């Protein structure tokens, strides 16, 4: 009843909603899916939970939805502990990884379902469902059934269904992972645009780093049931806190090097470190492919002093707006260089790889004890 009252304005934005996980613990048998999980979502923020499968990211989302009980800790929505509330009363909209439209209902009836549960009148249901479908560009498909819609369309209807009740929080559980590459990119942009427009606090779970970086205000990288780093996409990409994150976020060249007097010595070159207080000793260093440059073989005068290393082209891939080339360095390492399409290295070519350039590309790294 009270829900009906507050849910009237169709495009009304419920800013206000702050979500907080405080020390949440969740066990499955002896497996700890979440350990002391802390995360706060500001009002209207889109936070992506990024991690490999089994890192606990979906569990975190399901715990927030009430689909799993917690073993310890609290979940606060605008300061109220909702841990005890059943799913049906948490007032959250959720889009699932697998297609979850009710197959026996049309798209429009699917969207109306949540309103029906809230005893909204038939006329209002119809108009609000149509408006929600219009938001995702599918109002013309009101009477289609799930099996008459493409995968991308199904997920858009699912999004409309989740949003039509104007929930306090939007939960997205890998909503794009079953879709083709092209549809995936288009839909993630649509989701982001709608989310910004409505200003709804959103938790977006994904295992795809491109997706997380492209869409989120902040990204929380998870590993083994806890958050390893939280930050804006750029923070994560340029200053990963651990080798795990450097490896997981973005394509990186990993090289063995050595710290000496606040600089890293890698492949005979001396490169600046982000964190010069790093103690001396062996390190692993990550270099982004876009921070390397390819030079004709003639230019490479052999050693590191000039910042150029010689090597042989193993493979070169045309990626449309750019090209990525794998080079086997003479020193034995293989590095990937991202460069302009007008450079066309051929397999077997001798080339030079230039390190550095303006922004120092070397990631400061703890050595993983192994």
């Amino acid at each position, binding site marked *: 009843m009270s829900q009906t009252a507050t849910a009237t304005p169709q495009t009304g934005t419920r800013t206000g909603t702050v979500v907080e996980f405080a020390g949440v613990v969740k066990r499955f048998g002896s497996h700890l899916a979440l350990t002391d999980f802390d995360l706060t979502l500001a009002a209207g923020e889109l936070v992506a939970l990024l991690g490999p499968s089994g890192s606990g990211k979906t569990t975190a989302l399901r715990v927030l939805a009430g689909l799993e009980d917690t073993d310890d800790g609290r979940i606060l929505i605008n300061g109220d502990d909702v841990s005890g509330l059943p799913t049906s009363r948490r007032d959250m909209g959720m889009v699932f990884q697998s297609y979850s439209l009710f197959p026996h209902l049309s798209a429009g009836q699917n969207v109306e379902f949540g309103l029906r*549960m809230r005893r909204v009148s038939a006329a209002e249901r119809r108009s609000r469902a149509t408006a929600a479908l219009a938001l995702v560009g599918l109002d013309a498909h009101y009477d289609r059934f*799930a099996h008459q819609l493409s995968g991308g369309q199904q997920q858009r209807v699912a999004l409309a269904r*989740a949003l039509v009740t104007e929930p306090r929080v939007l939960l997205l559980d890998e909503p794009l992972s079953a879709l083709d590459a092209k*549809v995936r990119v288009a839909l993630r942009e649509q989701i982001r645009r709608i989310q910004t427009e409505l200003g709804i606090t959103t938790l977006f779970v994904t295992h795809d780093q491109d997706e997380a970086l492209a869409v989120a205000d902040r990204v929380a990288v998870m590993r083994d049931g806890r958050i390893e780093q939280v930050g804006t996409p750029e923070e994560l990409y340029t200053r990963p806190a651990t080798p795990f994150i450097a490896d997981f976020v973005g394509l990186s060249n990993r090289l063995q090097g050595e710290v000496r007097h606040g600089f890293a010595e890698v492949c005979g070159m001396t490169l600046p470190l982000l964190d010069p207080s790093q103690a001396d000793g062996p390190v692993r260093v990550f270099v982004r492919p876009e921070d390397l440059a390819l030079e004709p073989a003639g230019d490479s005068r052999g050693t590191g002093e000039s910042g150029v290393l010689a090597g042989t082209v193993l493979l070169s891939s045309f990626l449309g707006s750019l090209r990525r080339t794998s080079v086997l360095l003479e020193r034995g390492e293989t590095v990937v260089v991202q460069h302009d399409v007008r450079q066309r290295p051929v397999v077997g070519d001798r080339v030079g790889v230039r390190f550095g350039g303006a922004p120092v590309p070397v990631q400061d790294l703890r050595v993983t004890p192994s």
Partner: protein
Amino acid sequence: MTATGPGRTARVLILGLVGLVFAVPILAMIEFTLRRGLAGGYDLARWTALFQGGLTGEYRLVLVALGNSVGLAVGTVAIVLVLLVPTMLLVHLRFPRLRRVLEIICILPISIPAIVLVVGLAPVFSVVARLAGSGVWSLALAYGITVLPFAYRAIQSNLDGVDVRTLSEAARTLGAGWGSVLLRVLVPNLRRGILAGSFIAVAVVLGEFTIASLLGRTNLQTALVVVGKNDPYVAVILSLIALFTAFLLLLGIGRLGAARPGRKAGTRTPSVSQPTSTGAPS
């Protein structure tokens, strides 16, 4: 060439053999009902006689028995729906580890020896009879067990094709309680399986002989056997009709299955009408 399949001979042989196994008994029965006594030759006399004369006299037994069997079928279906469907959903959603156990339990009745039904169920029936009278309907309990394997398989195969877990979670996040989840989401999507299970249950009950015979009750099959001792021709004609009815029932199940073949929502389904979201959504 034979590049894309086994040889034609093999195919003809296999399909022919299968056809033979099924066709022979039925053709034999039809031939039997068309025989013109000792003189030889064939006619439709017996069929027309039956349909014109109707089931009178001693054949009234068959009508009574048919009534009994239909009543039993309805009772059996009710038991199956009320007990089996919720149990299966519960196991599927909440206790997935019990699935194997439930499957074994539900398939077990396939091999329950006849004697178990008689001796094992006798005391149960005597109690039931004392409390509530000993109508034929009391057989429904035994038939419920007999029918279990068939109903289980039908419902389970529907259950396997529907992502029950995600659908019920979606409904719950949308504000549905467990009652709404069951009635508004799960049952409509399991309609096919439930209907198929019910049809099969009806077919089994209409064809059941052992239990009724051993417990000395009258149902369609026992009546047909009794009638068959007096006039085998009429019995065979009635059986052919019963078989045909059962065939129609099962054909109905087949249709149910084909109607909306639990589409695997595919990644690569036609996306022709998928507008790229570069165009602003109004």
